[in-house]
């Protein structure tokens, strides 16, 4: 039996909520901000659900709203710089583990990046979007994605907590 637009939206939001909150967290470093961003994005998607469905890629639509809303809030309130190095505070309870240092170092390195470079890293290397998809999501050119990614990787390379092997893997195998 087919489902109506409302049921489709419900299923879509429940299915994609974790990914959008994680994206918001990657961009802001704060769960509260991340949930706000994700909820605002889904609300806007619901307000135009007919058009969003017709566009054929609701995931990209919501993702773009999360990113744009983050950029807008960053411009206004600089909340993006609240990315916290202490993963445990935001991530809930965790056990001490050697890998945790790497995660902290990674988030520290991300925090050191500017918002656009951070967004490029998150979209390009975490969400695994192509350069063109990243450019579309960030409303910039593919050339800008390339240059921002190059600078971001150079910064990460200089970061003590990021292994050279990681960067080499990304640079050699990450281009689509």
């Amino acid at each position, binding site marked *: *039996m*087919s*489902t*109506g637009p409302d049921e489709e*939206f*419900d299923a879509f*939001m*429940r299915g994609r*909520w*974790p990914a959008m*909150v*994680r994206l918001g*967290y*990657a961009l802001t470093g704060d*769960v509260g901000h*991340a*949930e706000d961003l994700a*909820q605002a994005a*889904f*609300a*806007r*998607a*619901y*307000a*135009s*659900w*007919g*058009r*969003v469905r*017709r*566009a*054929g890629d609701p995931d990209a*639509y919501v993702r773009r709203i999360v990113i744009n809303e983050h950029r807008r809030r960053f411009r206004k309130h600089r909340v993006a710089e609240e990315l916290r190095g202490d*993963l445990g505070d*935001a*991530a*809930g309870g*965790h056990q001490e583990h050697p*890998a945790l240092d*790497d*995660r902290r170092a*990674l*988030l520290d390195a991300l925090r050191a990046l500017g918002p656009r470079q951070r967004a490029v*890293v*998150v979209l390009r*290397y*975490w969400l*695994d979007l192509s350069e063109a998809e990243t450019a*579309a999501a960030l*409303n910039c050119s593919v050339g800008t994605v390339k240059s921002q990614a190059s600078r971001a990787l150079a910064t*990460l390379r200089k970061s003590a907590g*990021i*292994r050279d*092997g*990681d*960067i080499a*893997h*990304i640079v050699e*195998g*990450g281009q689509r």
Partner: protein
Amino acid sequence: MSDLEEELDRALRTVTFAEAPVERAKRAGRRIRARRRVALLVGVLAVTAAAVGYPALARSAAAPPAPLTGQPTPAPSPHPSDMAVSAYPASATTQAPAGLASKTGEIAAGSVGDMRWRIAVIPPGKKNPVPADPCYTITIVLGGDIQGPCYDLPATLGRGLGEAKPAAFTEFLNDGVTATTVGEAAADVTYFIVTFADGQQLKLLPVTVADHRYIAWMAPLSLGIGRVVAHLGGPYSDSGQTATAVPFNEPDVPPVFGLWQPAGQAAPPRDTQVIGAGATGGPPWKVTAYEGPWGTCFVTDAAGPVGAQCVASPKLDTTAILGWGDVSPVERGFGSAAPGVAAVRITLSNGKTVTAHPVGVGNQDLFAFPTGKGVTPTGWTAYDSTGRQVGAGTTAQGSAAP
């Protein structure tokens, strides 16, 4: 997966967060929709109030900029000041071989009473909220500008006109006070004359944005539109040929444009009949068919009109299911029957069947039937008055004849 991606993934998967607040997001989404609807009304009220307080603003609003070459000055008319309308191409337009063009996307400007407005089309691209779809913005001028969100352009607009007709219009944006129309014009249209029910007229020149020609105007909803005449020939040459659209008007609902008729062609006869009714598993409903110069329009009622669909054809003389869907709180379908068809049995996606009996409306036979929530028609079988099967088809076949 790269090492960095893996590490990011691991780190981000440790983040804990609340369950998806679906209902809260939907409530917020509804508020956004409601704000879109009332935004224009707020603009109207604010401009009216400001114009009362600042006569200079009212004078400024009442004086449109000088028209472009060949463009008529709206004739003064003895209409109540709040009902007087004007529209002209946006000041940013330039003359190009294919007609007026706008690089900024702004296509038209004008006034309703003391309120001034501008309308711009945002073509598909990076500036558009949905990159694949064009949309349009409405700006109300009040000292500074009040710009609303980018509204949908229907699929028939912004992608060229698939049928041989001079224009396709959006559904009107209905804020209860004013209505906005955005339309796409064919390449051979020179200009349009919009005639309102009180006799006021607007002459509209199409403006090209991203290879598509648009027109737009704004008017009080209560004004009503009598007809729109397209003058044909080319961007700068009027051949004298015309095509006329008479919209279907429902009270308090924006006019719906269906049929375009060349000059001299007889209009379909006017007739109105109820073609289906019931109360199966829900509130009482009925579908009324209106035939006339607009083509054929199907209006669904459930304690008031809940939906109107028009078919731009002067005569529907084949058996076909023309439309179906949810017009909350009713789920129904409707169609046309070939001459001699006395009953149509419709097969639904849930395996059930429902039988409808065509009703004569003007010079055609039409029917309506209930479906059910989430249920769609998949096929039909037609019978004559003796019960003999005279045709069958599926919804995928569209207008298969018996």
